C-alpha cells in the first residue's frame, strides 16, 4: 500500500488507529475460521465513527484499494479473511447504543456484541431474542452481514427478521440509511419495509461486499423469564420432523428446538454431557430437545401440555430429561466456542437451511460424505422461524495432517453440491454453493449487476459473496 494512502487514512482516524506492523497484519490474516488459509492485509484501520468509515472508503475507492470489513472475527467460513494486500477496516470501536423503548427497538453500532447488548437490554426487561452461539464475540452487525441465526431463532426466525433498518457506507463513501429511519424526521426505527423496495434486505447476508454496515436497528421484545426444558423421543425421523411442524401449527412456543439422531447425540454427550450434568440414558433413535418459552406461566403450562399431546399423537415419548435443552439454552451465548474444541481438532463448517420435513436429507448427505471421505464430524442444528431448519455440519481434521485437510476441503465443496440437490439453501453465499451450478446462473448475474453498480471498482471484499 502506498505510503501516501496510509498517511491520508492516518489523518482521518489518527495515526494510533492505523497499523502496518507485521505482527498486527498477521493477527488480522486469520479469524475463527480455522479451516481457511490466512491471508495478510497490507494495513489495518480502526475507525471510530461512520463518518471515518466513509472517508476511508472514499480514499480506498479513489486508489482502487481492496477493503475487508471486520467486526468480531468470530465467523467460521472465512468471511473476514482479507484478500492479499487489502485494507482491513475493523469496526469494533463503533460501539454506540440507542434505545427506543416506545418503538420497541434499538440501534447499535457495528462493534456491539450480542453479549453486550443483552446486558444493556436486560436491565429494561427486554431482549433481542436471537442469540448466535458466538454471542460473546459476534457483533449484531457482523451477524446481520452473514445472515446468521441461533438459539431463539426457532420462535423468532433468523437475525434478518429482527432488522428494522441499517446504516450502510457504500463503496464510494456515501452513507445511506434504510427502513423508516431513512426519513430523518422519524422518531427512530419502527418499520423496515418503508420507501418501496427493501434495501435493508440487500445488505443482509451481503458479507460486506456491497457496503459496510455501521449501524443496525433491531426489534426488541419483552424478555421471557418462563422456560420449560424437555426432551421428546421418537423411533422414526419423520415423526421427529412432523413434531416440529405440528408444534408450529399449534403455536407451541419453542424458542430453541433441535433434532438429534443417536450418533450425533452421542457425540454431543462426549463433548458436553458431563458439564451439562445430563444423566446417562438409553436414548431413542431420534431425540428432540426443546426449550419452551413464554412470558406468562399459564401460557407455558398450556404449551407443555400441548407439546406432550402432540408428541403422544406421533407415537413419541416425553423423555423427561431437561438437562440437555437447559444446557443448550443456558449456554446459548457461547456454544460455538465450546464446540470449537471438540477433540482439539480444526474444522470446516457448512451452514445451510433445510426444511424440517427434509431434515433427514441433510443428515443422509452429511453422513454419506463423511463415510466416503473417511472424516470425523458431526452435525447439529435447530429449527428457525416459519418452516426452516438450520444445519451446521462440522468436518474435523488434524491441523498437522495436510492430506486430511485436503480431503476436508474437497468434502466440504462436494457436500455443498449434494445439499443443494436436496433442496437446502445457504445463508452464506460462498462460491462453492454456486460455482458451476446452472440453476443459479441468472440469479448470480443479477447479483453481479447490483455489485457492479454499487461497487464499480470492485474494492469491497471481492470474492467473498459467490466469488463476485
Amino acid at each position, binding site marked *: 500500500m502506498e505510503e501516501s494512502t496510509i498517511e491520508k487514512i492516518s489523518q482521518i482516524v489518527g495515526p494510533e488507529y492505523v497499523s502496518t506492523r507485521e*505482527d498486527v497484519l498477521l493477527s488480522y490474516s486469520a479469524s475463527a475460521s480455522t479451516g481457511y488459509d490466512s491471508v495478510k492485509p497490507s494495513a489495518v484501520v480502526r475507525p471510530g465513527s461512520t463518518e471515518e468509515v466513509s472517508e476511508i472508503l472514499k480514499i480506498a475507492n479513489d486508489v482502487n484499494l481492496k477493503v475487508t470489513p471486520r467486526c468480531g*472475527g468470530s465467523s467460521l467460513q472465512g468471511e473476514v479473511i482479507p484478500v492479499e494486500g487489502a485494507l482491513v477496516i475493523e469496526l469494533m470501536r463503533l460501539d454506540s447504543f440507542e434505545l427506543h423503548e416506545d418503538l420497541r427497538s434499538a440501534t447499535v453500532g457495528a462493534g456491539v456484541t450480542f453479549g453486550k447488548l443483552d446486558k444493556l437490554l436486560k436491565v429494561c426487561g427486554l431482549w433481542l431474542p436471537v442469540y448466535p452461539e458466538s454471542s460473546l464475540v459476534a457483533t449484531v452487525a457482523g451477524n446481520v452481514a452473514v445472515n446468521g441465526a441461533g438459539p431463539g431463532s426457532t420462535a423468532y426466525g433468523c437475525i434478518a427478521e429482527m432488522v428494522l433498518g441499517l446504516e450502510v457506507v457504500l463503496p464510494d463513501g456515501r452513507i445511506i440509511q434504510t427502513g423508516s429511519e431513512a426519513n430523518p424526521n422519524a422518531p427512530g426505527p419502527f418499520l423496515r419495509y418503508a420507501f418501496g423496495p427493501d434495501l435493508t434486505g440487500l445488505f443482509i447476508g451481503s458479507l460486506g461486499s456491497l457496503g459496510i454496515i455501521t449501524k443496525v436497528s433491531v426489534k426488541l421484545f419483552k424478555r421471557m423469564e418462563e422456560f420449560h426444558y424437555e426432551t421428546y423421543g421418537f423411533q422414526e425421523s419423520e415423526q421427529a420432523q412432523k413434531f416440529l411442524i405440528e408444534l408450529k401449527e399449534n403455536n407451541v412456543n419453542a424458542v430453541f428446538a433441535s433434532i438429534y439422531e443417536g450418533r450425533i447425540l452421542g457425540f454431543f454427550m462426549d463433548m458436553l454431557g458431563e458439564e451439562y450434568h445430563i444423566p446417562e440414558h438409553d436414548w431413542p433413535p431420534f431425540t428432540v430437545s426443546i426449550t419452551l418459552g413464554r412470558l406468562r406461566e399459564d401460557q407455558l403450562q398450556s404449551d407443555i401440555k400441548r407439546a406432550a399431546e402432540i408428541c403422544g399423537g406421533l407415537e413419541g415419548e416425553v423423555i423427561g430429561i431437561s438437562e440437555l435443552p437447559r444446557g443448550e439454552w443456558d449456554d446459548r451465548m457461547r456454544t460455538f466456542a465450546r464446540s470449537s474444541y471438540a477433540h*482439539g481438532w480444526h474444522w470446516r463448517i457448512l451452514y445451510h437451511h433445510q426444511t424440517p420435513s427434509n431434515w433427514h436429507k441433510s443428515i443422509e448427505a452429511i453422513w454419506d460424505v463423511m463415510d466416503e471421505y473417511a472424516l470425523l464430524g458431526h452435525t447439529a442444528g435447530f429449527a428457525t422461524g416459519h418452516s426452516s431448519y438450520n444445519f451446521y455440519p462440522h468436518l474435523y481434521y488434524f491441523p498437522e495432517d495436510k492430506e486430511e485437510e485436503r480431503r476436508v476441503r474437497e468434502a466440504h465443496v462436494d457436500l455443498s453440491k449434494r445439499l443443494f440437490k436436496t433442496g437446502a439453501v445457504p445463508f452464506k453465499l460462498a462460491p462453492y454453493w454456486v460455482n458451476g451450478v446452472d440453476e443459479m446462473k441468472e440469479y448470480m448475474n443479477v447479483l453481479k449487476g447490483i455489485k457492479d453498480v454499487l461497487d464499480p471498482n470492485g474494492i469491497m471484499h471481492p470474492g467473498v459473496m459467490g466469488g463476485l
Partner: protein
Amino acid sequence: MTTMESGMEQLMEELHQCRRCGICRNAVYDARGFDGICPVYENSTGFETSFMRGKIIVALALLNGELEKTARNSESLFDCTLCGNCTQICPAEFEPAHTLELVRGLLAEVPNQVREEIAHKILSNNNPYEEDNSRKRKWISELGFDIPTNGEILYFVGCTAGMRIPEVAKNTAKILKAADLPFAVLQEEPCCGSVLLRTGKPEAAAETAERVSNAIKESGAKKIVVSCAGCLKTLKEDFPNKFDIELPEVLHILELADNLLQEGRLKPKALPGKNTVTYHDPCHMGRELSIYESPRRVIQAIPNVNLVEMETNRDTAMCCGAGGGLRSYNSELAKNIASKRVQDAIDTGANILATACPFCEHNLQSGAKIVGRNMPIKDVVSLLAECVE
C-alpha cells in the same frame, strides 16, 4: 529429543489449542459475571494483538520462524498483565496466560531491555529497586518492638512492601503481634522472583528460588506468611511446580487473619467514621489461587465497615494493570488500566478501595491520580491493623 525440544513441542501444541474464537477480547457475559475480559484491549488502541487471540497468533509465528524475533514483533507479548481473565473464560484445554508466560521464557534472544534490567537488578541486589537489601528490615525500627531473624512463623515481606509500601509490612507485623503470634523476618530476604518468572526469565528465577529456599531453611520456619499476592503465588505454586522446591506451608496474612478472627484471637474495634469498602481481587491471589473469601471475611469482621462489590469481582475481576511486568514494561498502559479499575470502585459508591497486594495498591494509587478523584487505596491488612491492638 532434548528437554528443551520436548518443552517447545508441548508449548506449540498448547498454542495450537487456540481456535481463535475471540472470546478473550471483550466478552460481556452477564450470567457469569464477566463484563469485559482483556484490560489491555480495553485500555489501548485495541488491535487484535492487544488481546490473547492475536498474541497467540504472534507467538506461534515467532516460535515457528514466520515472524522475525525482534523487539518490535514481540512487543505485544509483553504488553500483557497475565491476569488470567482470558483463561477464566477460554473454552480451550489450555491456559492462555500461563502459556504466554512460558512463551516469554522461550524468547530469550529477543532484546528486551526492561526485563534484562529487572533481572540484573534482582540478581545483583536481591530486589528490583537497586537498593541495599538490608532496607527490607528498615520498617521494623518504627514498630516499637523487635523481630528476630529466625522462628517458626516467618513473615516473608516481599520487595514492594519492604521497600516501597512499608505500611503494609508494619501492619502485617501489628496483626501478628496483636494475635500474640511470635514471628521472624529474614535478615537478608531475597526477592521471590515472581517478576522474573512473569517476564520470561526462568533461569534467573530458578537462581533466586534457590536463594529463597536456602534462606527459609536457615530461618527454621515451619509456616510462611506473606502480604504480597505475587510472593504468595510464587512461593506456594511456582516453587514446587517449576523448581521442585517444597517450602513449609505458605499463606497470605489475610488467610491467617481470617482464621484468627474466627478463633477469636483477633478482636477488631470499630473503624471510625462511615466506611464503605470495595475489595479488588489481586489476580495472583484470586484467579490463580482461588482465595476470594478470606479477605472479604476480614473486611466484614471489622465493625462499622460495609462491603460492597464492584461489578466484576472474584474470578471475573478486571485486573489492576500492574502484573506480568507491565508496570515496568509499559507503565502508562498499566496506570490507565488501574484508572479504569479505580473508576469501577468509584461506581460502587465506596469510599475506600481495598486490596491485598502491595503491587496492586501501588498501581491503583497511580490510577486514582489519573481519575483525579479522592479514592483512598488501602491494603486490607492496613484496615485491620487500624482496628486491632
